[in-house]
């Protein structure tokens, strides 16, 4: 029974050591990821229903295509890849470890003679002399070098960058770090948002998924929000002046702009949107048709006032930030009621950008908006992600690991010097564990240097 279990575990282990599995998994991830780019993710069921019809909707829903990157099967693929990487790396690390940390590297002259790339030189000096000339150069450019006496001369063995064989394990470990970091983030972090009106403060935010509110253990005050524009009308900068309050006392002040968030107690606040708030106070202008005089009056929203020259009373009811007029937005607009002393109230539209608009009504007085207090709210993205440092460590390891794996190799060199009459015959042979086609070139360079010295 026990044996049976062990065999079983062993065959599972073997299954995950296969590099074929990783090829299949990587390709599957590539292909399935496409689905989520063709179907917009995380929209409302109603929107999908309308877009795809009932039949497709059901099928897509069964396969979680509407939130596929969080679906069980996509996550399963990622977990399988992670297991694959870990098992495969452990399985091979044993052998690599032995090579990398061998006390005295083993060199085999006959293997260099038979299997390595080589250059042959003929020099006038004796092996003894050549050895003394070559040795300093070789031990300078290679980390490890040793000389052995042979039947007819000497043999210098050298090598460098043995440790680069570990680079690929760095790459694989970095993938594991990325996955662990994102897991930490999704368990202990959150992703939310909050809108703060200028001059006001909040102590809770909204979480996106699942939708709920979350209390903060401090208060955030937005003292000021500013948006500036280029001449073309495109936005140039969004800036919120934020203050963190603990027990009502300010502890941190910072102006945040896009790309420069505020961080406090592991919580980050990013400038992400803004919008206008309904104004409190409006300056109205009344122009009398009879006398041609214009009057200005400050009113509060909803406050009734008397119109000069006994024109009746006026009240502002509503503010719209992008009023639709005949299917087009005409920008900010107020609406209100004019109540003549006799007769029925008349609804009046006051578009801010078109002060002459009400003159078209041909009433006794024309009303327009002279000014109002423009107030904004700032929209902040509020996140906490304690896993981000693990992810960033993974990023660095991934880049460094890839560089080592791709561009550095374990290089070995063997210079065999054999006496032949008055001369010496020198064989310069070398191997590398990667980029093998580059070896002959490297040997040529070394041979050139050796010839120059001798």
């Amino acid at each position, binding site marked *: 029974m026990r044996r049976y279990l062990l065999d079983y575990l062993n065959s599972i282990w073997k299954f995950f050591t296969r*590099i*074929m599995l*990783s*090829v299949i998994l*990587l*390709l599957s*991830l*590539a292909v399935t*990821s*496409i689905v*989520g*780019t*063709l*179907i*917009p*993710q995380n929209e409302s069921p109603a929107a999908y229903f309308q877009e795809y019809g009932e039949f497709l909707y059901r099928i897509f829903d069964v396969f979680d295509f509407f939130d596929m*990157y969080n679906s069980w099967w996509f996550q399963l693929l990622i977990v399988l890849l992670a297991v694959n990487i870990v098992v495969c790396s452990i399985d091979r690390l044993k052998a690599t470890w032995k090579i990398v940390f061998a006390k005295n590297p083993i060199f085999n002259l006959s293997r260099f003679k038979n299997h390595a790339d080589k250059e042959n030189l003929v020099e006038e000096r004796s092996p003894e002399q050549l050895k003394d000339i070559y040795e300093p150069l070789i031990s300078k450019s290679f980390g490890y070098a040793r000389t052995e006496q042979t039947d007819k001369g000497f043999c210098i063995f050298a090598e460098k960058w043995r440790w680069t064989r570990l680079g690929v394990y760095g790459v694989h470990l970095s993938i594991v770090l990325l996955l662990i970091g*994102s897991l930490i983030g999704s368990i202990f972090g959150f*992703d939310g948002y909050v809108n703060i009106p200028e001059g006001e403060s909040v102590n809770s935010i909204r979480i996106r998924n699942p939708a709920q509110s979350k209390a903060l253990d401090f208060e955030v005050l937005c003292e000021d929000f500013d948006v500036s524009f*280029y001449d*073309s009308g*495109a*936005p*140039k*900068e*969004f800036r919120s002046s934020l203050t963190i309050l603990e027990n009502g006392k300010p502890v941190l002040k910072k102006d945040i*702009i*896009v*790309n*420069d*968030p505020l961080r406090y107690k592991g919580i*980050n606040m*990013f*400038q*992400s949107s803004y919008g206008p708030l309904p104004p409190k106070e409006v300056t109205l202008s009344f122009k009398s048709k009879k006398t041609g005089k214009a009057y200005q009056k400050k009113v509060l929203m909803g406050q009734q006032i008397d119109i000069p020259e006994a024109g009746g009373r006026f009240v502002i009811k509503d503010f719209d930030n992008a009023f639709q007029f005949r299917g087009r937005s005409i920008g900010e607009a107020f609406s209100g009621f004019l109540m003549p002393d006799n007769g029925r109230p008349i609804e009046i539209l006051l578009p801010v950008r078109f002060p002459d608009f009400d003159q078209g009504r041909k009433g006794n007085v024309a009303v327009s908006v002279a000014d109002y207090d423009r107030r904004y709210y700032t929209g902040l*993205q*509020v*996140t906490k*992600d304690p896993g*981000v440092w693990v*992810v*960033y460590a993974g*990023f660095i390891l*991934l*880049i460094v690991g*890839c*560089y080592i794996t*791709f*561009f550095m190799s374990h290089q070995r060199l063997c210079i065999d010097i054999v006496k032949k009459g008055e001369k010496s015959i020198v064989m310069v042979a070398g191997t590398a564990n990667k*980029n093998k*086609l580059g070896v002959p070139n490297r040997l040529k360079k070394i041979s050139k240097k050796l010839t120059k010295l001798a």
Partner: protein
Amino acid sequence: MNSSFLLSITTFVYGLAAFLYIASWVFKKELPGRLATWTAIVGLAGNTAGIILRWIESYSLGIGHAPLSNLYESLVFFAWTIIVVYLVIERKYENRIIGAFTTPLAFLALAYASLSPNISDRIQPLLPALKSNWLIAHVIACFIGYAAFAMAFGISWMYLFKQRDTEGKSRLLAPFPKPVILDDLNHQLIMFGFLFLTVGIITGAVWANSAWGRYWGWDPKETWSLITWFIYATLLHARMMRGWHGKRIAYLSIIGFVAVLFTYFGVNYLPGLHSYGA
């Protein structure tokens, strides 16, 4: 002379260089080949000057920023990197035929940028989200990677043609480098491209985290760059298994570059945001 005009001229210079490379290959003449190299170098000088001039122009408009902020500018930079990478390889491998398969890509990139009515060459002010050094690193790294993949794409086709002609009968294929060399060059370029794509995706993630507080959001462009990355990771692993050499690797390399193109252009036709303005 403004930068757009200079870059339009560069387009034609690259076109001429590509033509000369092809002519030198087809007619087996040395002279057009040498001319081609010089033409490519002149084009590169024009391309470089165009980028610098555009940079200066943006400052004199009072909206100074590195010229890497929209589709036009990225295509110009893409062409620049292709030619740089190619010229390095030409020097190293002393073979100009590769130019016949790769310089046309630089010409196409610039021609598309200069001539397509959908692409504006106006210098636009930077939107707030784009004001980040991470973004500059991101664009540079991505396009160096893409240029290497573009070269690998051209070389994969060369490999596929060459390996069919085992007896060396074809006159046209005779001067190609040996299949082993093409296969190795393909691999080298893909490693180089993979490293830069990795750096590109990572700097993009760091930028997203500094602008929106999330390093990954599965938006279509991000996802497609990851798909591309998966394809090339598959290739690198497949290469280490016996039997996956040469042809299959060349196919994977071609598929990988199609994914690059889709990440770059195709994504704009998908539902979603990321495009440069978002």
